[in-house]
């Protein structure tokens, strides 16, 4: 059911700073409200007004530690394949292997400016957790990461990376032991330790001011890309494509282009194995929240959700762990509602083919998350105009095992035969 059928004015009338149209807000336990106000204040002073040179230091560290700017690369062979100009924004080259560090470093640095003494964060597959652990080590902040037990067991390399960066990893046994439970548990820690602790949320989700804060730290992607495409191709692109889980790489890429009315923005979600929710099992075999979700409140914000008719959040599913989330950033919900962003999705197979295709044709092994954007490019490139920017949000080293397993059970058109015979 889409929000346009309903009158949201009745339920959201407060301070418009906290909302994006009908979406956003601060649906959190009372105990956290003062911390959110403190964070709003810090956001305004340090991020918006560069007080004490905060943003200068952030940008300098993202350059020297994080490896920014990342290139915008013309993809020669994709351009040929699709008979149009395809440019890749190379967030896979950011330290840690994904755009996640842009946000993690920004928030850890902000926590430091705020005088916080401790960092906590949730992680699903481990990408945000490793980025936060790296940032916390770099800035000498104690750090604890909550991670579902199931994820701990299936993402060991990322657990070890976090440990090696000095972070504690706290397995969460509740529920299915994945991202949703990790977020819940991190909020519980935060509700207990809020006075000295900052919660580094991993995407443009959560209560205000997180969606704006994270977006502003990630906006560097689009700022760079917009300038680069003009320099390299001489004009703005016809369309910009990015995958969307929570939507941080998405908003980070889109933000700078939102005022450019002629630039189409495509948020590619995980279509998983099907777009239908199984109400009985409480399971969505996808995480296509923007395309198929309904309005509700999850993790502090009003946004589009995958939920049952009874209001329970369902388990989402995608071959890509980083997209596997039942919510989405409220600003994206709003931009979809207003028509500025087009929500689309491709399924697991298209993503796996996208993974293999970029690896094989361009020598870049993309994250499975980013592979969704590439899968969409393959399917719908004819609608994207002559000049297309695709955000490669991360690298796929972390996904090798999954891809091998998933490739084995399918007949993928773009997959090589990976076996090298054994002696």
């Amino acid at each position, binding site marked *: 059911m889409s929000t346009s059928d309903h009158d949201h004015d009745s339920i959201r009338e407060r301070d418009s700073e906290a909302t994006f149209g009908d979406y956003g807000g601060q649906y959190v336990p009372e105990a956290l409200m003062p911390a959110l106000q403190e964070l709003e204040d810090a956001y305004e002073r340090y991020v918006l007004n560069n007080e004490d040179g905060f943003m200068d230091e952030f940008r300098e560290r993202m350059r020297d530690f994080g490896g920014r700017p990342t290139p915008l690369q013309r993809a020669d062979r994709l351009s040929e394949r699709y008979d149009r100009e395809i440019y890749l924004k190379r967030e896979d080259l950011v330290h840690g292997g994904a755009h996640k560090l842009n946000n993690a470093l920004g928030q850890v640095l902000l926590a430091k400016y705020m005088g916080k003494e401790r960092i906590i964060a949730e992680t699903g597959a481990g990408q945000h957790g490793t980025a936060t652990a790296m940032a916390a080590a770099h800035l000498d902040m104690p750090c604890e990461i909550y991670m579902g037990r199931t994820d701990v067991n299936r993402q060991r390399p990322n657990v070890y990376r976090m440990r090696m960066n000095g972070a504690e990893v706290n397995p969460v046994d*509740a529920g299915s032991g994945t991202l949703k439970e990790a977020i819940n548990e991190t909020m*519980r820690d935060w509700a207990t330790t809020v006075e000295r602790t900052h919660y580094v949320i991993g995407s443009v989700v959560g209560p205000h001011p997180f969606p704006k804060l994270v977006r502003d730290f990630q906006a560097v992607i689009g700022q760079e890309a917009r300038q680069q495409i003009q320099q390299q191709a001489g004009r703005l692109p016809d369309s910009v494509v990015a995958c969307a889980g929570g939507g941080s790489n998405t908003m980070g890429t889109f933000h700078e282009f939102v005022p450019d009315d002629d630039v189409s923005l495509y948020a590619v979600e995980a279509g998983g194995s099907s777009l239908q929710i199984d109400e009985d099992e409480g399971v969505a075999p996808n995480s296509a929240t923007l395309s198929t979700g*309904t309005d509700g409140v999850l993790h502090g914000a009003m946004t589009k959700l995958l939920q049952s008719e009874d209001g329970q*959040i369902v388990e989402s599913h995608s071959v890509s762990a980083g997209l596997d989330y039942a919510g989405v950033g409220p600003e994206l919900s709003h931009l979809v509602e207003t028509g500025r962003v087009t929500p689309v999705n491709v399924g697991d197979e298209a993503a796996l083919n996208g993974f293999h295709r970029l690896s094989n044709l361009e020598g870049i092994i993309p994250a499975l998350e980013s592979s969704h954007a590439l899968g969409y490019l393959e399917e719908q490139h004819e609608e994207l105009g002559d000049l297309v920017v695709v955000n490669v949000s991360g690298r796929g080293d972390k996904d090798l095992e999954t891809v091998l397993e998933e490739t084995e059970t399918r007949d993928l058109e773009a997959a090589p035969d990976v076996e090298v015979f054994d002696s």
Partner: protein
Amino acid sequence: MSDDGQPTTAAAGSDIEAAIRENHPALITYITAGDPSLEETKAYVEALDRGGADLIELGLPFSEPVAEGATIQAAINRALEAGTTQEGFFELVDELETEAPLLVMTYYNMILQYGEATADVGPFVERAADAGLSGIIVPDLPAEEADPLRTACDDHGLDLVFIVAPTTEGERLDRIMSQVSGFAYVQARLGTTGARGDVSSATHESLARLAEYDVPKAVGFGVSEGDHAAEIVEAGADGVIVGSALIDIIASSDDPVADLEAKAAELKRGAVRGGESLTNDVEDAPEPEQP
């Protein structure tokens, strides 16, 4: 809001406020509806009512209970696995005939989703009123986001209970206290729900800070024994709220109905004991102090 547009400070005359004032110091109990089944919940509620609960909170289970500790999370999981639905919950309430008024405690998304229309709180509140509920508590709905729900509650004569946390101070505290209806839910300590072995110093500090507001105050989060109840009432509370300690009984007792009734009685006795020692020895009350 009252008709003249003034905040209905502890909506004079509400069932809830009456239940607290009349049974002062009051015992407020929480259990999760549907744990382990709605039928059993019915028996448990009646036991608590018999044992001396003055107000009964019934949890409507939501899949993402971010404010709960491990005990209530587990209860919610059991309830959801047992197939507890919103409609089932309301049907249980329809049937219940307790002396103590009933409140529903649930998360905001549940309120938004009830009924045909997504993201509209009206149908839920209407159904709650029809079922005979007296009030609503929403742990993830701070005052800033509460306008729509408060409007609907006012329309249907329900109290909307706000939580006051150890971190709630200054202007926000004033604003919240001016909007309280029923009672102020005083969160005993930072963190989540869950039975604890002691009464935190934050409880004393919070009660001292709230002393000046003429609003019934009930303390929850961690209260598990009669002695805690006594200590809390002695510190100035009008009531104590007990949840996890009751759920522990449901989860492990061989005869939960009897044990729940006994536990309620113990807690009520503790509260009363605290009230008596207060009347006898009013000078012992701690000075209000800001942490």
